């Protein structure tokens, strides 16, 4: 028997469905966006101040706790927000199912790998001698 027929019309209309989720992506995109308004402006201003900087200047900058912490937060928010955005782009434009799934997997893995590399680099500088 068709499962749908076991549910009342009201149940079908208001039922949350099997997943009971779906707004997480939307919310995460907004929360990271708000975080990136502040972090992004701070980071952009820092990069302008460091334009053409040599390595010693960059090391001195990231050796301070506050810039190191804010840079790590920027990297996390940036790659999280970027992965959420690229996911929508891939879902919108890649119509072949296997290509879509594999693009999503590769994009996620690359995003996480780049974020970890960035965080590790900042920590290495921050805790380095």
């Amino acid at each position, binding site marked *: 028997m068709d499962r749908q027929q076991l549910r009342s019309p009201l149940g079908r209309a208001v039922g949350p469905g099997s997943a009971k989720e779906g707004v997480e992506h939307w919310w995460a995109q*907004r929360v990271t*966006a*708000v975080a*990136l*308004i502040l972090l*992004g*402006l701070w980071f*952009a201003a820092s*990069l*302008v*101040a*460091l*334009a*053409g900087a*040599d*390595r010693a200047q*960059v*090391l001195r900058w*990231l050796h301070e706790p506050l810039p190191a912490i804010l*840079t790590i937060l920027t*990297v996390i928010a*940036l*790659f999280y927000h*970027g992965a959420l*955005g*690229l996911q929508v*782009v891939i879902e*919108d*434009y890649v119509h072949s199912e296997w290509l879509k799934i594999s693009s999503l997997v590769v994009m996620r893995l690359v995003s996480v790998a*780049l974020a970890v*590399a*960035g965080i*590790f*680099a*900042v920590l*290495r*500088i921050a805790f*380095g001698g």
Partner: protein
Amino acid sequence: MTPAERPLSPFQLGTIYKLQLTSMLSLNHRATGIFLSVGSPFLVWWLVAAATGDHAFAAARWFFGSWLGLLMLLGWTFSFFYHLCNGIRHLVWDAGYGFELRTAYASGWTVVAASGALTVIAYAAGLLVRG
């Protein structure tokens, strides 16, 4: 089952839908987002190079100071400020405000002006600091 050959969203622009400020800004939000994502590995490269050593950092520094690097930095600067300004416009919409046609156009032109001005200011400041 073969899906019907219907025109898909982005390719209706210009042929079926008239080009207008609002749709161009929406398209550009996505384009700048993609371009910023392309830039993110370069940011990580810069950080990792600084953590690695003088030789690695010299290579990154050389790239960002080259004409291609400076051009890409200009593109990232504009993309950042555009995506930031238009992103705030989107957050205001998410809160339920600014949907009137006049308001949507006014906020749209504000985004164009603000992101253009911020790009010029930030890039010029960068060039000045760089010397």
